[in-house]
């Protein structure tokens, strides 16, 4: 245990610069995503920009602030694989939502 802790300390103590860098990056990225709204980008551009900045921020927080970058792959993969279930759920629910709004518009408003 001691060894492990020492190892941990060794990696932790070196990283002040890294933390500050990530911290700065997060501010910049947040500012960028704010600018997406400020300039009122619309449509695909808006959504893809929002997603890109979001995933970058999330990735930075997870990788460095939550130390995932330094964790062993066993832990990382156990944490990330279940996300496929969430992704599947999102895709299917997006399709379901589209279908719902389609029938609502068709039978409640448009007709034919």
């Amino acid at each position: 245990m001691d060894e492990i802790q020492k190892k941990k300390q060794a990696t932790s103590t070196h990283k002040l610069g890294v933390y500050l860098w990530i911290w700065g990056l997060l501010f910049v990225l947040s500012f960028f995503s704010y600018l997406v709204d400020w300039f009122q980008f619309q449509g695909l551009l808006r959504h893809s920009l929002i997603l890109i900045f979001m995933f970058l921020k999330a990735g930075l927080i997870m990788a460095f602030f939550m130390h995932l970058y330094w964790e062993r792959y066993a832990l990382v993969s156990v944490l990330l694989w279940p996300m496929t279930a969430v992704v599947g759920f999102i895709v299917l629910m997006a399709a379901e939502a589209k279908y719902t709004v389609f029938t609502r518009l068709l039978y409640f408003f448009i007709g034919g």
Partner: protein
Amino acid sequence: MSDNSLNNLPGGFKGMSHDMGSDQTAFKGAQWGKVMMWIFLLSDTFIFSCFLISYMKGRTSTVVDWPNTSEVFSLHVGGVPVPLLLIAIMTFVLITSSGTMALAVKYGYERNRKMCGWLILATAIGGLTFVGMQVFEWSKLIHEGVRPWENPFGAKQFGSFFFMITGFHGTHVSIGVIFLFIYARKVFRGDFDNAKRGFFTTMKSDYVAIEILGLYWHFVDLVWVFIFAFFYLW
């Protein structure tokens, strides 16, 4: 002990199959509490995912217009509406507190009690500020007539999802703030240096606890990143 230390283990994917095939622990060098927090956060991720998926379904399938968030959440500064100003400040505050938390973890492992304690306290105050601003935001919206069950700007579900999702996130922040204060006190008192036994669990205190608390706090920040993108910006 020597052949167990992390340095001698294979890394990368080879390390993964080694770890999974080995005895005793699957996550080499990861303390029990830390793994627990990770698995808990995984479960919590599913909770927030379900909230956001419901929100996606609700927002897409309503035939009533969804309010324009950048107008609804704008603040008037000197008579000029600035879109999403408050949200931007809240994001700023939360990221700041995340940074201080990351540093607190670092100093905790360095057994720098003072730094660690002050940084945790700063994090707690950041969290408190965030909750305070959220209270302001809620009262502003309520003042404008938005309720969980109705919304003057368009679809009913806007109010419902707004209060539910930010409320659930705010609850997480508040719980985090409470624990941050408790842990700041523990750090200053030196519990982690003396391995004092916990009041409830009777287990010995260890600086790993700060990292665990940090994981939780960063997670709260992480969720905010998604809420900010999907609820306020989308």
